[in-house]
């Protein structure tokens, strides 16, 4: 084959004079070592796939593939009534399904112009922040596991399980909660909910301090993360990064503060921002955000009062169970309500919330009727995942794993 000579920029000239230009982005074009990471690799968080071309252990180029968990959620949103879609929102970012429930309920309520009572909003805020804490605990824990620190992960995981026990008391489910309803909640918080939440907040604070002491100052951890796989401000803007990953790079954005929804303008909290956007900063921002979220939860629990949890709007009010079980009219209404759904006026609404990973948004177009005409979901992981390739270029294969863990790509909201 010595007659075939490689000219510059990846084109091959054959003896017959035919010249074949290689796509410079084509990984398979030369004889480098190509490894396929995923979709069933132990470090892949969900069914993600990356293909990396290695020079030694250094990643020369790589590409990401998505779509292994695609379930056509958005299309399903156009074929299900508004209530039926709630269960699909659980499966977006399954680490913080409560927050997705809240975001979706807010989107439909905005479209219908419904106000929910005060207690309902406080509960929604508490569950959102609990979901954020869970998500961040899992993210930093798994990130540590990827880099070899296993015990760290289980400390956080224990608190996560405790939180799930509280959530279980709210709605009977641990992971796929489906807690919110359009115009209200599935059911009111149980007796003593505030007390339990506050106890959990106090415990989580001490556990987080312990985790902080164990890992943040650890020399090996810092060697593995500080300055590794940075993604600077410009790149973050280029790739539409949001949430903790953007804040790690110094973009001071937080929808809870910048366009307050729920009662976020009534509570005190800081938005932690780092500067370098490396793996360590993405970790650190999350640690600090957990602290802030715990503060928010404590404030909400203090200010929560007894009261109704349902909007008085007749269109969305689910009939009470004793009415359903004891009166014929109630039963018929209940049946009709759930079988045919309720009418949503024509219009469109884009509602974004600050989910644990970044800006989670629901864009709903209604032409009237019980089903959405168009439903689109902006899952932050889509943008974050696309940034992985440029992020890890020139770094080692072990850094790729660390970067992926720190960016916290969740396959559920990536592929939808």
């Amino acid at each position: 084959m010595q007659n075939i000579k490689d000219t510059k920029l990846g084109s091959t000239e054959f003896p017959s004079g035919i010249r074949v230009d290689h796509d410079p982005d084509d990984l398979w074009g030369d004889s480098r070592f190509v490894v396929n990471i995923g979709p069933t690799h132990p470090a892949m968080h969900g069914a993600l796939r990356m293909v990396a071309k290695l020079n030694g252990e250094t990643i020369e180029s790589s590409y990401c593939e998505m779509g292994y968990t695609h379930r056509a959620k958005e299309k399903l949103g156009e074929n299900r009534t508004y209530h039926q879609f709630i269960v699909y929102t659980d499966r977006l970012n399954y680490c913080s399904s409560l927050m997705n429930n809240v975001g979706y309920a807010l989107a439909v309520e905005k479209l219908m112009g419904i106000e929910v009572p005060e207690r309902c909003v406080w509960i929604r805020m508490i569950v959102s922040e609990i979901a954020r804490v869970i998500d961040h605990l899992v993210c930093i824990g798994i990130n540590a596991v990827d880099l070899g620190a296993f015990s760290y992960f289980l400390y956080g995981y224990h608190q996560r399980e405790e939180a799930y026990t509280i959530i279980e008391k709210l709605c009977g489910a641990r992971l796929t909660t489906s807690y919110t309803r359009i115009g209200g909640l599935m059911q009111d918080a149980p007796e003593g909910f505030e007390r339990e939440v506050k106890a959990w907040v106090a415990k989580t604070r001490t556990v987080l301090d312990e985790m902080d002491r164990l890992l943040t100052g650890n020399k090996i951890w810092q060697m593995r993360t500080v300055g590794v796989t940075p993604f600077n401000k410009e790149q973050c803007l280029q790739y539409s990064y949001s949430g903790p990953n953007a804040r790690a790079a110094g973009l001071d954005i937080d929808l809870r503060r910048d366009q307050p929804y729920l009662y976020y303008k009534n509570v005190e909290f800081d938005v932690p921002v780092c500067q370098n956007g490396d793996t360590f900063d993405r970790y650190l921002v999350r640690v600090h955000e957990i602290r802030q979220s715990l503060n928010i939860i404590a404030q909400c629990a203090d200010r929560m009062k007894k009261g109704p949890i349902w909007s008085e709007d007749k269109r969305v009010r689910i009939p009470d169970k004793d009415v359903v079980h004891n009166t014929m009219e109630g039963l018929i209404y209940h049946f009709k309500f759930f079988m045919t759904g309720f009418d949503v006026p024509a219009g469109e609404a884009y509602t974004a919330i600050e989910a644990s990973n970044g800006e989670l948004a629901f864009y709903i177009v209604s032409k009237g009727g019980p089903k959405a005409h168009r439903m689109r979901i902006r899952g932050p992981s889509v943008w974050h995942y696309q940034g992985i390739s440029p992020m890890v270029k020139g770094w080692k294969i072990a850094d790729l794993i660390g970067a992926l863990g720190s960016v916290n790509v969740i396959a559920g909201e990536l592929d939808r």
Partner: protein
Amino acid sequence: MDTFDWVATAVKILIVLVPLLSVAPVMAWVERRGSALMQNRKGPNRIGPLGLLQSIPDAIKFMGKEDPIPGHVEKFYYVLAPLASLIVPFLTFAVIPFASSMTIDGRVINFQIADLNVGFLFILAVGSLGVYGIIMAGWSSNNKYALLGSLRSSSQMISYELSMGLSVIGIVMAFSTVHLGEIARAQGEVLMTLGPLTIPKWGIFIQPLGFLIFLTTAFAETNRLPFDLPEGESELVAGYHLEYGSMKFALFMMAEYMNMAVASGFIASLYFGGWQMLPGMHSVLDVLGLSGLTFDIVRVAFEALSFLLKLCFFMWFFVWVRWTLPRFRYDQLMDFGWKVLLPLSLANIFITGVMIYYRWY
């Protein structure tokens, strides 16, 4: 060699071999219970008291599994690799003394299977064969992750063996011998007396820097966290033993634990007085007031127990570190080996030389 020698050697081999073979199941239990202790979990607790018998069903499971050989592997080396890994720790443990000597019928028995005059050089020489098992496994598996794992492993072992060997030179200079039995014996002398406290001439007291270097390299040599890059579970799936299942995988696991035992035994004999009795044991022996052969047997038992306890401490130390620290990155590991440990071990030799010149030892 007459019958007496044969019998004595056979008994010694049994004394070493049986515990060494049971290291893997026991350590598997210790590792799981130990990690559970550190992680607020319960760990295996169903079979036997405290889950102690958990290893038995585990072993049965390993043996009962189907043992397929994938079609894409290089069969000969694929099968050879686990054996090559396993033989090394058996060979190396042969020269580690686990008790002093006793006299039966006017004949001296040294409690050391092979009393080699090259001593620890033998351990270093044979210990470096261990990398062959890993390289063979990675290469013959014909799998990219396994290959990466074995490549990492070979460069890691070569770089850390250097520092390991050099750090032991300090001990050799201090005791003027490479003979492990004599090193252990020499550590019984008194270094200094601080009031009621008698500090023996253990390796750690006269070679603290050498000890730290040796400890670090021992972690690297046994592929344990923070140096478990050849396996690097999250990056390389399972590293060099990715394509192995059933008993072949179990052999790799046994080899890892036995390597830990060898490294712990090596640390104990070089730096913690080997079979020298732990503080307090001498007084117990005096209180018992035995004499003759009984005294000798009890003394040897105490010495072996001391050695075992020291060994167990380091085995626990391995587990302890594994569940605490994150993992290095490959290039950081190499940097650490060549730019930190190697200069330090050379400096250690220099310092030791200066101290010997001024007769501080």
